[in-house]
C-alpha cells in the first residue's frame, strides 16, 4: 500500500531526477586535457603576426614537442636524449587524480600543483593571477632557489627541498605535512621528477618556437634542442655548490665585529645591496625591476611593462599583469630560500635566478670583488637583521653562545617557556 502511494513517474521528484540524469550525461563527460601551446612566447618574438599566425605557429611547435613528450595524461620521454627523469614517477604524477585498483595514487600534479602552476607548468593555473608572487613558469627552465650557479638547472634535491619546505609568504605550500602518509617520500620525489619533465618539455617548446621564427626546420631542430636541454639538466648535480660550515657559536665581540664588517660590505658600491634592500635592509631601496619571466614578453619584446596600453594586448595570449619584483625586507627574517646561515650564503654567492638579485662579485686574482671572509661577514650581517642579539638559531631558537634559548627570538622564547 505504501508503494502505491509513492508519486508516479510524472511527479515532481521524478522530474528532478530526470534533470540530474540529463546533467550527468549531456556534456559532463571528462574533457581531454592537453598542454597549452606557448602563444605568449610566439607573440613576444613576432609581434607583427596576426592572432591566427601566432596560434598556428604555437600549435605547430606544441605538436612537434608533443610527439617527443606526449600529453598530460600520457607523458613519454624520447629515448634519444639524456635520461634525466624517472618515467615511472612521472607517470604517477601525470593524468587525472585518483587511485587504481591496486590503490596506487596517480595525478599528484593535478592534486597538489595544477591550481597555481597549470597543467602545462606555465604558471597559468586558475588561481595564478591572484597570487603574489605569481606561480613559477617552469618552461623557462629557471628556478630561483637552488644550489647551482646562475644559468644552470637546479638539482633534484633543490626541487625536493622547495616541495618539502614550501616558500614562506607565498602561495607555494610546504608538503612536509604529508609526512604522516607512508607515501610521502615517494610523492614528493615523484612530483620533483614531474616538474623536471614539464620544465624540459616547456623549454624545448620555447627554443623550438625561436627556431621556427628564425625559419629553421622544426622537425630537425626539435630533437637537437631536446638533447641540449636534457643535457643541461643532467649536469646539474655536478655543478651543485656546497656551502661552507659557518660559525654559529660566536663569541659576542667577534660577532659584533663581523656584523660591522658585513654592514660595510652591504652598504658598499661594490655589492650595491642597499640599492635594492635599503640602507637598513628593510627593502626600502630605489630599484624598480621586473623578474625575467615578465621581461621575456615585455622588455625583450619592446613592450614597456609600466604602460598598460602596451602590455594589455598581450593578455589575449595569456599574459598576466606585470608586477614589480620588489626587494625583500631582510629584517623580517622570512627567507624563501631557507633561513639558516648556509642558505643565506648560497643566496648571496649564487644569486636568485630570474630575479633582480645577482650573484655577488667574488674577488679573484686582481678582479675587484668580495673575499670569502667578506662573504661570511655579509652573511652574518644579513642574518643579524632578524636575529640581532646573539645569533640564535632561527629554527630552534637555541642560543649557541649560552646554550639556552634566546628570549629575544620568538621561537626561542617559546622553547624557554616549554623548558
Amino acid at each position: 500500500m505504501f508503494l502505491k502511494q509513492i508519486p508516479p513517474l510524472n511527479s515532481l521528484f521524478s522530474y528532478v531526477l530526470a534533470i540530474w540524469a540529463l546533467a550527468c550525461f549531456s556534456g559532463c563527460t571528462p574533457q581531454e586535457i592537453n598542454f597549452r601551446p606557448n602563444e605568449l612566447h610566439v607573440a613576444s618574438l613576432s609581434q607583427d603576426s596576426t592572432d591566427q599566425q601566432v596560434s598556428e605557429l604555437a600549435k605547430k611547435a606544441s605538436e612537434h614537442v608533443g610527439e617527443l613528450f606526449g600529453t598530460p595524461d600520457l607523458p613519454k620521454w624520447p629515448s634519444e636524449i639524456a635520461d634525466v627523469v624517472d618515467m615511472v614517477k612521472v607517470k604517477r604524477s601525470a593524468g587525472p587524480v585518483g587511485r587504481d585498483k591496486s590503490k596506487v595514487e596517480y595525478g599528484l600534479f593535478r592534486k597538489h600543483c595544477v591550481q597555481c602552476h597549470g597543467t602545462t607548468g606555465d604558471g597559468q593555473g586558475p588561481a595564478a593571477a591572484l597570487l603574489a608572487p605569481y606561480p613559477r613558469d617552469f618552461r623557462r627552465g629557471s628556478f630561483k632557489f637552488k644550489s647551482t650557479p646562475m644559468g644552470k638547472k637546479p638539482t633534484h634535491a633543490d626541487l625536493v627541498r622547495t616541495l618539502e619546505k614550501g616558500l614562506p609568504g607565498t602561495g607555494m605550500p610546504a608538503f612536509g605535512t604529508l609526512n604522516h602518509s607512508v607515501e610521502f617520500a615517494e610523492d614528493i620525489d615523484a612530483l620533483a621528477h614531474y616538474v623536471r619533465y614539464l620544465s624540459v618539455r616547456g623549454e624545448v617548446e620555447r627554443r623550438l618556437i625561436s627556431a621556427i621564427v628564425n625559419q629553421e626546420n622544426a622537425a630537425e631542430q626539435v630533437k637537437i634542442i631536446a638533447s641540449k636541454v636534457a643535457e643541461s639538466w643532467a649536469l646539474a648535480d655536478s655543478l651543485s655548490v656546497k656551502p661552507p660550515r659557518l660559525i654559529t657559536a660566536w663569541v659576542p665581540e667577534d660577532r659584533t665585529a663581523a656584523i660591522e664588517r658585513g654592514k660595510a660590505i652591504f652598504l658598499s658600491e661594490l655589492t650595491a645591496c642597499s640599492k635594492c634592500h635599503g640602507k637598513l635592509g628593510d627593502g626600502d631601496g630605489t630599484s624598480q625591476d621586473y623578474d625575467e619571466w615578465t621581461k621575456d614578453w615585455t622588455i625583450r619584446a619592446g613592450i614597456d611593462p609600466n604602460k598598460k596600453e602596451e602590455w594589455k594586448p598581450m593578455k589575449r595570449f595569456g599574459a598576466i599583469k606585470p608586477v614589480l619584483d620588489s626587494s625583500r625586507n631582510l629584517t623580517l627574517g622570512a627567507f624563501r630560500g631557507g633561513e639558516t646561515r648556509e642558505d643565506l650564503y648560497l643566496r648571496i654567492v649564487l644569486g636568485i635566478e630570474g630575479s633582480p638579485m645577482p650573484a655577488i662579485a667574488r674577488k679573484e686574482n686582481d678582479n675587484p670583488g668580495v673575499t670569502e671572509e667578506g662573504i661570511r661577514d655579509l652573511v652574518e650581517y644579513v642574518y643579524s637583521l632578524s636575529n640581532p642579539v646573539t645569533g640564535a638559531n632561527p629554527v630552534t631558537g637555541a642560543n649557541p653562545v649560552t646554550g639556552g634559548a634566546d628570549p629575544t627570538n620568538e621561537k626561542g622564547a617559546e622553547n624557554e617557556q616549554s623548558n
Partner: protein
Amino acid sequence: MNNPTNPRHALVYLAAMLVTVLTFPLIWLGGLVTTHDAGMAVPDWPGTFGYNLFLYPVSAWVYGPFDLFVEHGHRLLASVVGLFAIVLCVIAYRNESRGWLVKVCYLFLGAIIAQGVLGGVRVLLDARTIAMIHGCSGPLVFALGSFIAMASSKRWRLASPKTGSNGLGRVAVMLLALSIAQLFVGAHLRHSLPTWRPLFFMSLVHTHLLMATLILLAVLYVSVLVRNFANSANRELRTPANALLVIVTLQILLGFATWVANYATPWVELTPWLAKYTVQGKGFWESMIVTGHQATGSLLIVCSLWLACRSYRRVPVEQSAEQSVASLNNEPESTARKVFRPESVSVGVE
C-alpha cells in the same frame, strides 16, 4: 488531524530532525572529499575496490590512505542518511495528515538517491563537472531536509500565513536566493578545472566577494528590521536573524582564513609572522578551515530558509504558543503526554 500537539506529528518532526542532523556531517565529509581531492580515491562504484560497500574491511578503511578513508566514509554515511530518509518517508506516510508534506518527504528521498547516483556517476566518468554539481546540490538537499523539519514542527502548525505587506519576508527570500547563488560560485571555485584561465577564476573570486558583501548587508538589514518589531510574537524572528548574523560573521572569517590556508595572505610584509607563514599543503587545520567554510555556507542557506519560513508563517500576535496549544488541542491530553510529550521536543530548528 492538523493538531499541533498530536504525538504522531511529533514523530514526523523527530524523524525529520534526525535525518537533517545526520545530513550536516555528510556535507562536512563531502567537503573533505573535495579538499583532499579524494573523489577518485575509490575508483569503482557502487562497490569499494570490488567489495560490497558495506563489506569493505574496516581495517583497510580506517588504516588506509586518508583520501580513501574520507571517500569511503562519505559513501557509508550517505547510505545511512538514505536509510533514515526511507524511515522518514514511512513515518510521514503513516502519521502526516498533510499530503503535500508527505510528497516533500518523497522528494527528499528522491533527492538523496539522486545525490548518490550523481556521486556514483562522478566516479564512473571521472568528471569534475559532475563533482561540482554534486557539491552544489548537497547543501540544497540539506536545506530540503531542514524544511521538512520546520514544516513538521509544532510552531508551523500554530502559525498561519502572513497577510499584508511583508518586507522582511522579501528580504529573507532574497537572502536565500543570494546564499544559493553564492553556493554555486563557491562550488565553482572549489572544483575549478585545470583548463580554466586565470582571469576567469579571478572574476569568480571577485563575484564571490561581491556576493559575500551583499549577503552581509542583507543580514545586517534583517537584524535591524527584526529589532524594530515591537510586539512579542515577532520576537521569534530574532532567533533566525541572530543565527544568521553569527553565521555570516563566522563565514566571512572562515572565507578569509580559507584564502590564507590555500594561498597565503596578500600582505606578506606586514608583520614577520605573515612573512614567515608557509601554507601547509593538505595540513589538518587548513583542511578543516576550508571544509568549514563550505559547510557553514550550507548553514547560511538553511538559516535564510528558516527566516523566510518564519516571515511568511507567523504565530498570531495576541495568542501565545501555550494558549494556542490549549485552544487547539482536541484530543485527551493524557493520551498525548503518555506517549510522546510533544511539547518537550518541539523546540529545535523551528
